């Protein structure tokens, strides 16, 4: 009985492996026509529409260019070292180009040095690495998160008539993108009459965001504005506000996801700082294909702003 179950499990393993192999893009065993392979390494695409859009756009652009696309995700918020390990494995695998969204601005530097030694071109998207290491990548294409937060703050302040109480729902601890957006927001509302009466981390999760907003509202129901570091937490935040019966709160968010835009159209959310993941993806692949093709990339600007746009109901 036990043996049978064990055998069934081994069979399940083998099937999964075969099936999973088949889920790769492109053909794997065809070594005669060497297909260019581009890999994208990031934190996760689960529960993150924005990161998923970047991945989708890279995949689309890569396949259009005739390259094979490989996706590696590190997993949760905390898997910083897993990403480094995965990039090392990509180097060992001799991929032709790497698009990287670093989970930590410093942790990936040693492995990028190894990529450079191995001659694999790297393009950064969405998040960058510590200044002083520009030789390790062709270009960084991304939203200026600090600026996005700042513009969001300024826009919200103007909408609220330069006064009012504001809550902040942060991302997860240790996320530089989230931190930059919030810091930017605080800069943006500096000097205005806006007052931050509550600031707690939502951990990029709806249930956590909902709970912290519910509790913050207990301390202070007199809220006019709210800033959240990402659209992904909006569902929980809106439900919390609704449950507490707090109305007319102007919410400013970041990402510009389809869900976010929908909520703006419905009037539930005031605005979102849209990012342009498709620009990031297509540009990144274009740069990589040039580099793989042997073009000299030294003239490429080190930072390419993929753009931020404040989207409010007026724009939709």
């Amino acid at each position, binding site marked *: 009985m036990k043996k049978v179950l064990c055998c069934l499990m081994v069979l399940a*393993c083998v099937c999964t492996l075969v099936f999973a192999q088949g889920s790769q893009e492109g053909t794997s065993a065809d070594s005669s026509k060497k297909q260019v392979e581009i890999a994208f390494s990031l934190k996760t695409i689960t529960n993150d529409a924005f990161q998923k859009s970047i991945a989708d756009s890279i995949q689309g652009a890569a396949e259009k260019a005739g390259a094979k696309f490989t996706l590696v995700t590190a997993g949760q918020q905390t898997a910083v070292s897993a990403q480094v*390990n995965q990039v090392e*494995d990509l180097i060992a695998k001799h991929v032709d180009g790497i698009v990287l969204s670093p989970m930590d601005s410093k942790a990936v530097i040693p492995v990028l040095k190894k990529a450079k030694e191995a001659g694999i071109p790297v393009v950064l998207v969405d998040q960058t690495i510590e200044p002083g290491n520009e030789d390790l990548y062709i270009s960084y294409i991304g939203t200026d998160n600090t600026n996005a937060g700042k513009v969001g703050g300024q826009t919200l302040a103007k909408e609220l008539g330069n006064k009012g109480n504001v809550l902040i729902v942060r991302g997860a601890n240790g996320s530089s993108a989230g931190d930059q957006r919030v810091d930017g927001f605080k800069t943006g509302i500096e000097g205005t009459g806006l007052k931050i009466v509550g600031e707690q981390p939502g951990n990029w999760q709806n249930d956590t965001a909902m709970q912290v907003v519910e509790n913050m509202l207990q301390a202070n129901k007199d809220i006019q504005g709210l800033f959240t570091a990402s659209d992904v937490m909006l569902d929980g935040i809106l439900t919390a506000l609704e449950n507490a019966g707090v109305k007319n709160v102007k919410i400013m968010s970041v990402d510009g996801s389809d869900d976010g835009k929908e909520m703006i159209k419905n009037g539930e959310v005031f605005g979102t700082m849209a990012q342009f993941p498709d620009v990031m993806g297509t540009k990144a692949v274009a740069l990589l294909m040039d580099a793989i093709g042997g073009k000299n990339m030294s003239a490429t600007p080190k930072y390419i702003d993929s753009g931020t746009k404040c989207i409010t109901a007026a724009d939709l």
Partner: protein
Amino acid sequence: MQYSEGEKAMVGGKKDYLKFLLGVALVVVVFTILGTQIRGFLSFRNLMNVCRQTSIIAICACGMTMVIIIKGIDLSVPGVISCCAMINGILMLQGWPIPLAMLVALAVGTAMGLFNGAMVEKLEIPAFITTLVMGNIGRGLALIMNKGDSIGGFPSAYVFMGNGTWLGIPVSNYIMVLFVVVTSILMGKTRLGTYIYALGGNDLVVKQQGISTSLVNFFVFGFSGFCAAMAGILLSAQLDTVHPVQGEPYLMDAIAGCVIGGVNMLGGEGKAYLALIGALIIGFLRNILNLLGVHPFYQNIFVGVIIIVIVGISIARKNNVMEKNKAF
């Protein structure tokens, strides 16, 4: 497997050695097959890399082996990794000499471990919950120390420890082997080692023999804290960064590595070098999945199934032997 009367008597002797050889042969075969199928797998660079990545898990597993043997568990590993690495990092950035900074961080890790031991020994609080909460405290401290930010830009000597090579082999691997050797000697060749195994077998007997259980508890948990602190220091050397929550993924991998390596979760059984092999299996498994380009969603399923299967098989074999050797 049917055991004859004579074979039963050989359990522990020639049979074990044959099984070991068989295991080695199996590994060679599997590696060869994988090497032909996967580009880049058998390259020296890749093999050394995987060992280097796995060294963190392996060092944690050294301490974890001891803890599991005395029927405990140490869930504070991620918190200690993050906290001690952060202490080490901050001190180094403030100009402290590297060995001194490391010493302080190791001391803190050991102290946290000793605290765990105290709770388990003196207050009889189960190791699960005390180490779980201790780990959270450690993680919290790591967040506080630098206001949630990561720090980096460490002296090159330190980074060399994580990324440099000596005679072509990464320095991390030497450190990993050192830890495993030391742990094995402690467990196998010292009086303390026998006490540890004894405590894992039957603590009543241990007390009757006059062996101080508090000594064993304190030592084991303290050593586990020490290992976790070293793992944290090494990890930050590899990344040239201390990320406040960098330790999280290592807990489950360390435990899985131990169990796959034959450490018995019910206590009393296990060897450090086998835990090393278990850790390497986990490391290579992830490496293979990455090299194959298996979609991340499927990787999780695969890792989960493999863990259960390997442990299931080893338990089934053990049960088989036990049942055949039963008197009735």
